[in-house]
């Protein structure tokens, strides 16, 4: 079976063209998460622009590959489970 991935890739994303956008976003997010979010800082999200670009790329790849993620309810299957 052929996996159409760039062989030089380190960060693998479902959209081969999204690698750099994903890397940029992940770096921004990880910094914001540790330095701001976990410390209760409710300031503006510095990653919204890089997230937007990354999402635009990834959502396109998801549609192209017909991955059935649309309309799946957040934590859907958890609803019928007893409380942890």
């Amino acid at each position, binding site marked *: *079976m*052929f*996996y159409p*991935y760039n*062989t030089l*890739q*380190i*960060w*693998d*994303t*479902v*959209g081969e063209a*999204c690698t750099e956008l*994903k890397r940029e*976003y*992940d*770096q921004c*997010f*990880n*910094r914001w*998460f*540790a*330095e701001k*979010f*976990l410390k*209760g800082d*409710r300031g503006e*999200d510095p990653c919204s622009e890089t*997230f937007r670009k*990354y*999402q635009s790329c*990834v*959502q396109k790849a*998801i549609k192209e590959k017909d*991955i*059935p*993620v649309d309309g*799946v309810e*957040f*934590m859907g*299957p*958890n609803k019928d*489970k007893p409380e*942890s």
Partner: protein
Amino acid sequence: MVKYFCNNTDIRSTWDYVVSAFWQRYPNPFSTHVLTEDVVYREVTSNNRLLSRRLLTKTNRLPRWADRFFPSGISRCVYIIEDSIVNPVDRKLTTYTWNLNHTTLMSVEERCVFQDSTDEPDTTLLKREAWISSGIFGFSRPIQEFGLSRYKSNQVKAMKGLEYALSNLRGISLAVAGDTAPWLLSDTVKDASGKAKEAAKNLASAAAPPKTQQFI
């Protein structure tokens, strides 16, 4: 019939480190079966919780007897959703993970809760629960056993992957001073994992039916 599985593990790191490492654990040397990882949704709610959805694709390693359920045209890739809620006030990370496809053959759902340990300092308690079931009439028992066995083996790999990310985070934060970012895994560390994964992918694409695995 659904098989239920539950266990508790102590992770020898603070909750803050564990939650930070949670986002940075791919790729790692134990995750060669994970092909892609993408955040597809994220939101900070008005009560300051972080909701995220990640989409993962994994190779689907099956024993030979399961090949009959997979005519050659069917995708061997499994799509997995991981939804999570980080509550920084209660210091609780809850995740729910399940497969989107191949659900008739097997459905694996997992809930994880990461919280500060009440017994040990600087330790995080992980409570994991899994629900495994198969819809294949007449075969569901061996399939469930296989599923449970693979789930346990994946659990070990996932813990090793998380520990790997944690030890790199800790190592870097001890070694550096000044402006360097201790919360980011170094690229050289990830590069090595990336090469291991590349080798696994090349094997996967070259192989015909997957090798039989031992499930004890």
